[in-house]
């Protein structure tokens, strides 16, 4: 099976977010960047399927700055065969990204196009379903289980209170959720081999963003914390506070 996996370089989830002096973007100093965690599930799925059948290929694609090559290299180290960098600064508008990806992918041959269910920076959760629509392909988002028999796909999709079963025929798009599989760590051999794998790069010109970011602010401050007491003996006082002060019981 031929798979294409779209990934994104994002600040690590343990990053403390600071706002840049323009008041509209993230201050990049001291930020550690990683592959968005959900993309790892998408990549693992593609790699495991190729290994199980012993045929096909896995291509990783990202839209990002020059530094996103690092993210592509780590995907190659995990086992992807080739990589494509669409060089541009990703805007806040998911549709602009989706159009650029769809343009790059149109005409390429593949069976399965995979994404993480969302990138953990913008948290837009838009691009997979948008690319699917732009390429007129079927799509299942938030996928925690995937079976493929011949050309027929059965995906389990996480929804409030349970799962939906989604069916379609290949080629198609899935957006991976945690639980789909256990992503592997790159081996030393994988890291060595990654340096020799093909990495194509291309500058892309993006359309103007349809979303204007006016301001980025820190989250509202929490009220002053208070230690009510120690041990089980402090429980009645806690319950009293929750009832009388916070009025939540």
């Amino acid at each position, binding site marked *: 099976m031929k798979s294409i996996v779209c990934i994104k370089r994002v600040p690590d989830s343990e990053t*403390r977010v600071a706002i840049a002096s323009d008041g509209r973007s993230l201050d990049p100093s001291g930020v550690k960047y990683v592959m968005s965690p959900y993309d790892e599930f998408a990549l693992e799925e593609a790699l495991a399927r190729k290994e199980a059948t012993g045929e096909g290929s896995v291509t990783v694609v990202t839209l990002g700055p020059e530094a996103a090559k690092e993210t592509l290299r780590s995907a190659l180290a995990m086992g992807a065969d080739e990589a494509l960098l669409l060089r541009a600064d990703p805007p806040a508008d998911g549709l602009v990204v989706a159009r650029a990806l769809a343009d790059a992918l149109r005409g390429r041959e593949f069976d399965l196009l995979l994404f993480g269910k969302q990138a953990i920076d913008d948290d837009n959760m838009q691009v997979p379903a948008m690319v699917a629509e732009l390429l007129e392909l079927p799509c299942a988002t938030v996928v925690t289980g995937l079976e493929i028999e011949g050309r027929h796909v059965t995906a389990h999709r996480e929804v409030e209170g349970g799962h939906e079963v989604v069916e379609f025929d290949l080629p198609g798009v899935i957006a991976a959720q945690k639980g789909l599989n256990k992503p592997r760590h790159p081996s030393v051999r994988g890291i060595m081999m990654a340096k020799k794998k093909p990495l194509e790069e291309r500058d892309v010109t993006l359309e103007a963003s349809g979303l204007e970011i006016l301001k980025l602010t820190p989250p509202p401050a929490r009220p002053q914390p208070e230690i009510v007491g120690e041990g089980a003996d402090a429980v009645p006082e806690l319950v009293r506070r929750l009832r009388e002060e916070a009025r*939540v019981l």
Partner: protein
Amino acid sequence: MATILAVTESRAGELRPVSREVVATARRLADELGAEVEALLLGGPGVRDGAGTLAEAGADRILVAENEEFRLYAPDAAVRAVRERCEATDCAVVLFAATAQGKDLSARCAARLGRPLATEVTEVGIEDGAVVVVRPQYAGKAYARIRIPGAPALVSLRPNVFSAGGVPAGRGEVEALDLDAGTPRTRVTAFEAGEREQLDVSEASIVVSGGRGMQGPENWKLLEDLVDALGPKATLGASRAVVDAGWRPHGEQVGQTGKVVSPGLYFAVGISGAIQHLAGMRTAGVIVAINRDPEAPIFNVANYGLVGDAFEILPRLAEEIRAVRS
């Protein structure tokens, strides 16, 4: 006259409660713009019964497509319906719920309409004729204020944030929508309810989350008992560490790589408070932290902290809560 299109949700012929929030928010925007509210209701047989609720929440016109094929989410037909309404009317805003279904559908519609989308907003208003929203990014570590010029603006609303009431009823005209199921590319063929009859962690108004400090999955009965004492609006949550360890299902995970929740009351038990966890629960109304370590970062965001052994505190807490609730 301009319209605001409110896209509602149903499952098995039943209107989903979040739809009231979407329609009531549409009503508020419509009154500001001098527009009318059109609600779109797709569902299985019986879904028409939800029209009264939508009228009460502010809908002037309710377009109903009742069809056995729409019992479950029908993405291709729903996209067509939204697109046709946007073309048939002078649509200023399309509002969705930021649920699993709403996020999927809104992204598809945005691509088809060629219009930008703001996902999971916590505020929406009109400034100088344009839609302006506020939405969390980096799982709530920052909030972005965003202007969406042009029409229609596509917006999905974070559930449990917008009021479902406090607006005048709409005219409530019900019209049948002529919508063919067609031959969908993507077919939702079944809904499987979760193993336990448990509220989803993103939908509950009280969440009791456990972390590594619970020492093992066998001790979760203490947390389950507290949930039980707190009543039907409470549910279980979990930290990433315990989900990664396989103690709890990932559907319960709260945090940047799990669910972002804003319940009225949140208990963090044996959770140290890693940044990625705090990102998932810092918008909760009241946070209670129970931890053995008085230096744990979770105490910095908690309204109330209890230092001590969770195994001693939890049974007493369940007992005291049962006493005050009865």
